[in-house]
C-alpha cells in the first residue's frame, strides 16, 4: 500500500476509490465485467480499512456530501478568521485609551502568545484542524497589532524590519498548522520587506516601495523559486501558493508599468518604457504558460493565461477603441478570443496525444 504523505494525496486516493466503484457499477450494468461476491467482499474490506485509516490520519471526505460540507467549513473558517482578526484590532483601538501604558504593553505582548498556545492545544484535541487554523490566524493578527501599537504608543520611527518578523511568524504558523492563508500573508510580508530594501538601495524611503513597481521583481523571483529549492510534499497546496504569488508579484508590476512608465527606474522616455513593459508582459505570460504546461502546473497556467488576456485586451483597447466603430472593436475582441480558443484546443489535443496527466 503506497504511503500517503499529505492530505491532498490521501483525498485523491479516496476519490480514486469512489470513482472505481462508480466505474465497476457501470461496467456491470453494461455486462462488460462481473466480479464475484467474494471478490466484491474482498475489495470492499480492503477499501473500508484503507478509507478508515486515511480518515483518521488526514480527516478526508469520503462522499460528495462530506465534500460539500467541507467546502462550507473552509469558507466559514476563512471568513471567521478574517472577521475575528479585524475584531481584535478594533477591540483594542476602542479601549486602549483607557489603559495605562504598562497594561497596554502586557496585553499586546501576551495576546499573540496566548492565542498561539490555544492554537496548539486545540490542534492536539480537534482532528479537523479548522479551529486551530482560525486561532492561528488570530495569533498572527495579534502579532501585527503588537508591533503596530507599540510603535504608536512609544512614537517609534516606522521600520521595514516589522515586515520581516511578520513574514517569519506567518511562515512558522503556516507550516505549524497547515494554513495556506497564513502562507500568503507571510509571502506578502516577505515581498514587502525585500521590495522596501531594494527601494532603499536606490535612495527611496521604504514606505514608498510601491511607487517603483520594479522593486517587486526580485521578491517575485525568490518566491517563485522557493518550491524548487525547498521540497514541501507534506504540505498540501503550498507549492501552488508560492508559484501563483511569484507570478502575481511579477506580472502586476509589469502591467502597471506598461501603462505608467513614469514609475520605472529605467532612464528612457515614458513611451519607450511602456512599450518595453507591454512586450515584456506578453513574452513573460506566454513563457509562464509554456512552463506551466511543461511542468504540469495548472496554477501557473491559469494565472499567466489571465494576464496574457489582460495584456492583449489592454493593447487592443489602446490601439483601436478611439479609431474603430464600437461594433467592429468588439468583433475584433471576439475574433481574438476565438483565435485563443483554437490555439488552446490544439495545445490540449497535443497533450492528450502525448498522454500527459494532470497535476
Amino acid at each position, binding site marked *: 500500500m503506497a504511503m500517503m504523505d499529505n492530505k491532498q494525496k490521501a483525498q485523491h486516493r479516496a476519490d480514486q476509490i469512489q470513482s472505481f466503484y462508480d466505474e465497476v457499477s457501470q461496467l456491470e450494468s453494461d455486462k462488460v465485467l462481473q466480479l464475484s461476491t467474494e471478490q466484491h467482499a474482498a475489495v470492499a474490506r480492503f477499501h473500508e480499512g484503507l478509507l478508515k485509516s486515511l480518515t483518521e490520519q488526514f480527516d478526508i471526505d469520503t462522499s460528495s456530501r462530506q465534500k460539500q460540507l467541507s467546502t462550507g467549513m473552509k469558507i466559514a473558517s476563512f471568513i471567521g478568521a478574517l472577521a475575528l482578526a479585524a475584531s481584535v484590532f478594533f477591540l483594542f483601538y476602542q479601549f486602549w485609551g483607557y489603559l495605562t501604558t504598562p497594561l497596554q504593553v502586557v496585553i499586546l505582548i501576551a495576546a499573540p502568545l496566548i492565542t498561539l498556545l490555544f492554537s496548539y492545544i486545540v490542534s492536539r484535541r480537534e482532528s479537523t484542524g479548522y479551529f486551530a487554523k482560525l486561532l492561528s490566524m488570530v495569533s498572527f493578527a495579534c502579532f501585527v497589532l503588537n508591533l503596530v501599537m*507599540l510603535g504608536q504608543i512609544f512614537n517609534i520611527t516606522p521600520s521595514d524590519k516589522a515586515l520581516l518578523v511578520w513574514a517569519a511568524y506567518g511562515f512558522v504558523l503556516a507550516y505549524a498548522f497547515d494554513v495556506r492563508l497564513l502562507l500568503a500573508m507571510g509571502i506578502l510580508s516577505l515581498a514587502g520587506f525585500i521590495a522596501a530594501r531594494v527601494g532603499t538601495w536606490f*535612495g527611496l524611503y521604504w514606505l514608498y516601495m510601491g511607487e517603483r513597481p520594479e522593486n517587486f521583481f526580485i521578491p517575485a523571483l525568490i518566491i517563485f523559486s522557493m518550491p524548487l529549492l525547498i521540497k514541501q510534499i507534506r504540505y498540501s497546496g503550498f507549492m501552488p501558493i508560492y508559484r501563483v504569488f511569484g507570478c502575481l508579484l511579477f506580472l502586476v508590476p509589469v502591467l502597471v508599468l506598461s501603462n505608467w512608465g513614469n514609475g520605472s527606474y529605467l532612464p528612457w522616455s515614458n513611451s519607450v518604457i511602456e512599450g518595453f513593459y507591454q512586450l515584456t508582459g506578453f513574452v513573460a505570460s506566454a513563457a509562464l504558460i509554456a512552463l506551466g504546461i511543461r511542468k504540469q502546473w495548472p496554477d501557473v497556467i491559469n494565472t499567466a493565461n489571465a494576464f496574457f488576456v489582460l495584456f492583449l485586451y489592454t493593447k487592443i483597447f489602446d490601439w483601436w477603441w478611439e479609431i474603430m466603430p464600437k461594433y467592429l472593436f468588439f468583433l475584433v475582441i471576439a475574433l481574438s478570443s476565438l483565435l485563443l480558443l483554437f490555439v488552446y484546443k490544439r495545445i490540449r489535443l497535443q497533450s492528450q496525444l502525448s498522454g500527459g496527466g494532470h497535476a
Partner: protein
Amino acid sequence: MRNLMITAIALLLLTNVVVLAGIAYNRSGEPLASVLLTERELSLPVYYAHNFDEDSSTSLHLEWSLLDSDDDPEFLYTRYVTPGWLNHAKLIELGIDLEKLKKDDNSYTYTYNDAAHTADVILVLEYNGETYQTALTQTEHKVVQLQKKISNKQDKGDYSDDLDRYKNQLDQLKTTHSRLYVIDAGLNQNILAQKYADKNKYLLARGEIGVDWQDKKIVGHIRHLYISDIHVPLPYSRRITDLTQDKKNNSNSIPVSPRYAVQLNIGQRMEPWIEAVKILKEGK
C-alpha cells in the same frame, strides 16, 4: 510541530525584547531635547482626520512652519515653501545629486511627489526663536506699509482686503499659530546636537527632503516629518480631554489661546515622548 512552536514563541519574545530594548535606549540618559510646547505647537487632531468613535486614544499633532525666502511672500508662515537655508549647497550636503538632475530636462519627472528625488535627513526645529520673531516683524511691517498706503490719499489702490488678511495673519502669529520653525537639516545627529546645544529651544526630528522644478530652477522642500503625531499616555490624556471636553478640534471654530503646555522630550533615537502636561487655562 514542537520545533515550530518553540520557534514561534522564541520569535514573539525576541521581537518584543528588541523593541522594548530600543524604547529603553531611546529614553536612557539625557534627552537630546526637552522643550515646553503649548497647544499651538502640539494640537489636538482635526475632527475629520480622526475616527474618535472607534479609537479611544489621544494623540497630539506637531505643528511646524517654515519662513519663506521670498522678499514679498503672500503668506509668511507655511510648510509648503522653500526656506532660505535650503539652498543648492545644502541640497548637495544632504546627498541630492543636482548635477545629475540638471541633465534631465524632462521636468515632468520632478513632480512634487516624485519619490526618487528625496533625502532622508535630520531636521532642526527652533521654538520661539529668531525665525519666529522674524516672521512677526515682517508681518507687522507689512501691516504698517499697507496702513500707510491706505492713508496716502494720492494712492488710488484698494488695499483694504490685503490689510485685513495681514492683520489676521498677525493676530494668528501672536496667539494661535505655532512658534516652531524648521531652521536647518543635516545627516549627522552628533554634529547637529552640538551646533544646536540649547535643549530647551531646539528639537531634532527625522524627516524627508525632496526637490522639484520651479521657474526652471531646482528647489528643495520639506516633504514631511516621520513622526508628527505623538501619543499621549494616561493620565495626561485624561487631563487634556477633560479640559477640552472632547477631543475634536474644529478648524472652523474661533481660535482660542493655548489651554495646555506639554513637556516634549526627544530621545537618543530621536523618538519623542511626553514627559509632563501642564494646564494653562481651565474650560474651553
